[in-house]
Structures are given as structure tokens and as C-alpha cells.
């Protein structure tokens, strides 16, 4: 088929893939920060959910998406600190703590939502002015490329016109890389995830580093949650994270704990999802129409195959998951 035609077909899918990738990307980077410092976090889901609720509520309360973002981030950091206290200060089991965080968020969001708004945990529906909507980045380029087909369409649907958080998530990737691999803080943080004893004997506080990492993790989850409730949709709905936290975790392993790989992994997941959506109900050449479930299963099945086929072993930071004690 002719290139423009193909682009017309691909552009929407790519755009949708990107939109679906954003929350995964935020969460995945969050996990990266936490686990690079040696704190395993399966509570990403819960933090996202809590943030989604907080941002939804705050945005409605103060009629500003920014208030939402702020609240989302703060609340998520709060949850992150609980996890930090349990796994860093108390040397508790990090997975149990993560599970607890997930339960806590699932219950508390709906509970408070019910008490405050009496809509079964839903936060009030947000006006356009209270949300992060697509910002017009056309800059004439879209027009120059020819409005609504071919490259023009790619520009307007894949590159331009997304909401602020989308670009923020993309910016977070190089930022994460730069901080972790180009600064003192990053050096120490990666070190503490690999051999905390080395950091300790070098006279740097292990706990201090890990707490800071956990806080960044919280902030990023906050962005993820806000994106869900205040950008993608117009308010919080119970359990609206729908397992994205776990997919993000998968992406993190997939990405071998590296920022740019994380970008790739999340885009891949997003794209697979978008394709699954697009392909639903369309007959396959040769086979004819296949059950919806085939396409719904596609992203998960492909992930497994890719992992077993191409990715090979991915080794987590050596000290991740292990509480730090001075003696062997």
C-alpha cells in the first residue's frame, strides 16, 4: 500500500500506543529509581491508585489540574515513605510491604471517596479547565506537512497535541539517566543498590540514599496517577489503575533496570495494547474473524515470547530486596 495510506493507518495506532505507554513509563521509571537503590517495590500499583484519587479530588476541589498534580505527587510520596519506613528503617519484607500498600490504596481511595463524595469512591467529574488537555504544538509544521494525512497526520497525532504529562514522562527518561549516571547522587544511589556495605564504609548513609530514591519513586508514581485521573480521564474511578503497576514492573525487568530501555519497553507494551485495540473485530487474512480474546491476549502472549526469545537474563541490582544490616 502507498506510504501515505500506511501512515494514515499507523499514525492513530502510534498515537494511542504512546498515550497508553505514558502511565507505564512513569511507573516503570519510579520502579527503576527504587530498585536501583535496592528497594524492591511491587507497590507501584497502589501508589498510582492513591495518586489518581488524590489528584482527581484536588483538581475538583481547587479547579486546577496543577493542584491535582501536586496532591497526587504528595500523597504518592506519602505512601512511598510508608514503604520506605517498613523496608529501610524497619528492615521489613519489601514485598509484603508492597502488597500492603496496594491493599491500603485500593481500600482507602474508595473509602474516602465514598465518605467525601458519596459516589462509591468516584471523584467529581472534572471540567476541561480542571484537566491536562492536549496542548497545541502544531507550530505550523503539521499544516506544512499537509494537515490530516501522511506525515502531517503522524505529526499531529503522534508527536504534537498530547497533554503536558506525556512530554513530561518522555523528558523524565533522559533526566533519570543523567542524574543516575552523571551525578554524585546517582553514583551513590546505584552503588547502594549494588553493595550497600561499600557505600556505608565509604561514609555515606545507606538509609538516607534509599529514602531519597523512594521519594523520587513516589513522585513519579504521583505523575502516573495524575495522568490517569486528570489527563486521560476526567476523575477517579475505583481500581482505575487496572494492573498497570504490575505491567510497569514487567517492563522494568524487561528493560534490565535501564532508563532508555524502559522507554522502549513501555512504548512496546503501549503499542501492543494499541494494536490489540485496533485489531479487535477486524478479520485476519486467511483465518477470518477470530475471537476478541485472541487480540486481548496478544500483548501478554507476545511479552512472554519476547522475553523467552530475545531478552535473555536480566539481573536486578544485587542488593535489591535485601534489607541492609551492618554485619554479614
Amino acid at each position, binding site marked *: 500500500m502507498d506510504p501515505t495510506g500506511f501512515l494514515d493507518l499507523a499514525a492513530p495506532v502510534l498515537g494511542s500506543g504512546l498515550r497508553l505507554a505514558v502511565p507505564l513509563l512513569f511507573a516503570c521509571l519510579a520502579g527503576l529509581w527504587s530498585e536501583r537503590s535496592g528497594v524492591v517495590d511491587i507497590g507501584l500499583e497502589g501508589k498510582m491508585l492513591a495518586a489518581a484519587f488524590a489528584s482527581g479530588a484536588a483538581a475538583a476541589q481547587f479547579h486546577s489540574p496543577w493542584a491535582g498534580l501536586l496532591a497526587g505527587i504528595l500523597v504518592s510520596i506519602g505512601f512511598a515513605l510508608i514503604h520506605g519506613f517498613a523496608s529501610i528503617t524497619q528492615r521489613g519484607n519489601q514485598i509484603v510491604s508492597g502488597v500492603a500498600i496496594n491493599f491500603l490504596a485500593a481500600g482507602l481511595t474508595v473509602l474516602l471517596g465514598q465518605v467525601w463524595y458519596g459516589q462509591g469512591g468516584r471523584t467529581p467529574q472534572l471540567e476541561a479547565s480542571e484537566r491536562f488537555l492536549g496542548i497545541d504544538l502544531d507550530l505550523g509544521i503539521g499544516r506544512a506537512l499537509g494537515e490530516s494525512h501522511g506525515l502531517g497526520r503522524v505529526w499531529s497525532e503522534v508527536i504534537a497535541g498530547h497533554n503536558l504529562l506525556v512530554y513530561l514522562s518522555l523528558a523524565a527518561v533522559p533526566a533519570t539517566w543523567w542524574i543516575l549516571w552523571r551525578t554524585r547522587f546517582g553514583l551513590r544511589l546505584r552503588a547502594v543498590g549494588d*553493595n550497600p556495605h561499600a557505600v556505608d564504609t565509604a*561514609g555515606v548513609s545507606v538509609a538516607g540514599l534509599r529514602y531519597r530514591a523512594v521519594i523520587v519513586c513516589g513522585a513519579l508514581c504521583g505523575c502516573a496517577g495524575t495522568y490517569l485521573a486528570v489527563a486521560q480521564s476526567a476523575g477517579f474511578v475505583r481500581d482505575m489503575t487496572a494492573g498497570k503497576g504490575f505491567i510497569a514492573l514487567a517492563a522494568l525487568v524487561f528493560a534490565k533496570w535501564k532508563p532508555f530501555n524502559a522507554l522502549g519497553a513501555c512504548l512496546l507494551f503501549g503499542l501492543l495494547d494499541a494494536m490489540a485495540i485496533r485489531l479487535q473485530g477486524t478479520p485476519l487474512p486467511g483465518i477470518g474473524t477470530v475471537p476478541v480474546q485472541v487480540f486481548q491476549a496478544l500483548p501478554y502472549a507476545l511479552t512472554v515470547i519476547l522475553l523467552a526469545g530475545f531478552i535473555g537474563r536480566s539481573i536486578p541490582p544485587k542488593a535489591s530486596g535485601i534489607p541492609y544490616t551492618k554485619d554479614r
Partner: protein
Amino acid sequence: MSVSALPPAIEFIGIDKRFGAVHANRDIDLAIEAGTIHGLVGENGAGKSTLMSILYGFYAADRGEIRLHGRKTTIRSSADAIRQGIGMVHQQFMLVETMSVLENVLLGAEGSPRLAPAEARARAVLRQLADDYELTIDPDALVADLSVGEQQRVEILKTLFRGAEILILDEPTAVLTPAEAAHLFRILRRLAQEGKTILLITHKLKEIMAITDRVSVMRAGEIVAEFETAETSVERLAEAMVGRRVLLEVEKGPSVPGAVLLEVEAVDLRDKRGVSVLDRVSLEVRAGEIVGIAGVAGNGQSELIEAIAGIRRPTSGRITVCGRDVVGLGPDEVREAGLAHIPEDRHRMGLVLDFSAEENMLLGHEDDPAWAHGLLLDRSAIRRAAMTAFDDFDIRPDDPTLRAALFSGGNQQKIVVAREVARTPRVLLVGQPTRGVDIGAIEAIHRRLIALRDQGHAILLVSAELDEIRSLSDRVLAMCQGRITGECRPDVGETEIGLMMAGVAPEGVRA
């Protein structure tokens, strides 16, 4: 040397430390003159590491004070210690293996928030240090890829980079080859001459005699003796440590070699990256003899042992144990063929530290019918066996139900040895049998190996300790870059063996 008028660099005054009810350090008084090298010896668990850890701010003393250059100081954390100019090279290295030498040196002493400038500065300093102390090492090398000796150099560089005036080394030579050790000592002397104060913990009394100015002996948490090195002897130190006379020289009769039990023929081995680590290695070990392999660590000895034990599969060549070709067999099958293996790293391979001692006795033998009780394991049988082993090897504490991690290195090593010799294997592979082990334990282990030889077992010994090689072996092979570079009788001089280890075989040494 003349005792200077100025106050000692370090003074421990009544230092006392308990772990739970373990009295690790009892009211320690110790003064160390600036610019001297001070030795600290004692059995496993005597309290040496603890005392040093206190000086380095890693543990807090329960009582007592520390003075540096006469000034009373409180050292609450490693950070404090570093600020006070104290540097420590720990028993197990404190390095981030996935990072470069440069990053490891910088860690915690970066200076600027951005790395780039800090790295530039560090490179310059490293170059300087390299020139001053022949501490040459590629700053961009990944630590994981370095030999143990090099890794230790990194540790020393770390302390110097932080401008340490007082240097603590905990068993620095436990993992070094003679050459590397010699190199290390040259560096230490240089540092001492420049007025730096050095505290050296080691189990090797010869080293104490060689480079320290003074030496203190610890036993059960106390300082039981202190000598001017010049005025003491290995024997007196040993006696002070253990509290009884110790036989340092293993006395052994001549060997009566029998049939060939282990035969290695033209074995090649490439690692994952395809680099050749064993190059047409051939050797044989007969019943009733100990063959020692001398060589600088990382020249294929470990790989050779693992290839024979069935842990690595040779790319080509034949290996026969008791006449059975074992190439391609798994470790368990090789064991059945009559081989036992004391691995060189007990913590990494020889033990499961979280298992009880008796469960460690099972490792590799879990499907031995002796332990079987129908489908189940026969706990009482295992317990009985463990008990006998514990008495037999005098392993302390005398409680096989304790986690292996709670035993000192010496006793941990005895557990491994006990397990491996229990089934009187025909062929025994022994790697670094006495690394990090106190002389009491060394004596016991050596005796046992000789006894096995005399009972007609074939023993292949790999050790970084030339002394150990020479005192135990009946024949010595030298290895270099994966090749056997020479063979000689154990009584030839260190220099010849050294040459062979370097890959140049001077004529005449071939026996």
C-alpha cells in the same frame, strides 16, 4: 627504632565490646606509634576485626575511648573515621563490582555534585598515586573483571585518595599470591616511611615477622601479649595465640605413589566469551601422593579444578578418575566415580551459610543411601555423622545445628573438609584449604591431608601459599596462563618455582 617523644598515633583505652553476650573485645589497651607498622594476630573469632571495626566507626564500643595523636576522639561513623584520616581495607572487599575502578574510588569522596569534574580530578590523583606507590591500575576497568590482587589495590587507592594517615588492613594477604603480597608490603613500607601508621591483621606469622615493627596478640577478645617484632619469633607468637605449642612444620614421611587415580590429558577450556582459560593441560596424580599446583591466582587453577570436578565442561581433552572417563559427567556423577572437592571459596561455593552445619554436611551427598530413610532423609543418621565429624575435627562451637554463618572461617573450613573426606574418596581436589584460617585450624587441616595421602588417596592441591604447596606436596606443578609451565620437587627454591609460575621454566628444574 627510637620511640619518639610525640604521642602515639592511635591509643585504645579500655575498649570493651559485646555482641549479645559474646565478649568480642575485653577492656583493650593498645598504643601504636605514628609511622610504624603494627601487627595484630589471633585465632578466628579472637576479636581483631571487631576492634578494627570500632576504630573505623563501624561498630560503637560499649566502653573505653580512642585517642588519635593524643587527642580524645569520638568516632561515631565511618564518615567520622574518614574525616579523622583513618582508612580501612576490609576482610571482604567493599567494592561495587558493577562499577569502574574510578567510580569506586570516587564513591563518597566525589567533591562536586556533578561527576565529570570529580572524575577528571580523580584521574590525575590516581596517576600520581600510581607513580608514587606503583599502584598502577586501569581506572576505567570494571571491578568485577579485576583479579583479587587488583581489587585490593583499588581498596588501598580508595583510602589514599581520601588522604588516610592511618591505614587498617584486615587479612589483606589471605587472598593474595606471594608476588602480590610482596608487592603489597613494598607499598606498606613506603607508606610507613612517609609517616603513615599501619595496622595489619593477618593469620600469616611470617608476614608479621617480615614487615611489622611491633605485634599484639589477641585471644578470646583480650590482648594477651605484645612484642617488638625484632625480639620475637613465629613460634612464640603462635604459642601466645593458641595458648599451647603448635607444630608449624608438617612432618611427613616419603610418599609411596601407587596407581594413577587422576589423569588429565590435553584439556582445553574456553569461557563464555570464548577466551582460552585452559590450554592443553595434562597431569596425573597417583595414589598416595599430593600434587601441588603453584601459580598466580587467575591462571587457570580454579578452572582446572572445576573442570575435573565436573562443574565446567572442557572444550576438549580427556579426564579420568579411577580409570573412568568423567568428561561430560555432572559433579554428582564425578563424585560417584570416587572424587571429592574442597572448593577454594567456602562462602561462595562450599557452604550454604544459611543452612545449619549438619545440613551443610549433606551438600552434594543428599542422595547417599546412608542418609535415606525410605523416601525421607534420616535426620538422626545425619546428626550422628555430623557429631562424629565435629569431634573428629574439633569444630567449635560443638553444635551442628547452628547456622554455618555463625562459625568462624576456620571452623567453616573444617566443616567443608570434614564433609569432603568423610566418604574416603580415592581422589581429592583441594583449593586454598587454609585461606583466612588461623594457625590452629591450619595445623589440623594439614595433618588431615597428609594422613589421607598416607592412606593411599590421590590429592591435587591448589594454593596461593607457596609455603603450603611446598610443605604438603610431593610434586609441584606450576601453572601460567592456563598452561602447565613446569614441574619440580617441593624442595627447590622459591625463586625457581617463582620463575616457573611466571611461565619461564629454567632448565634443570624438571625432575
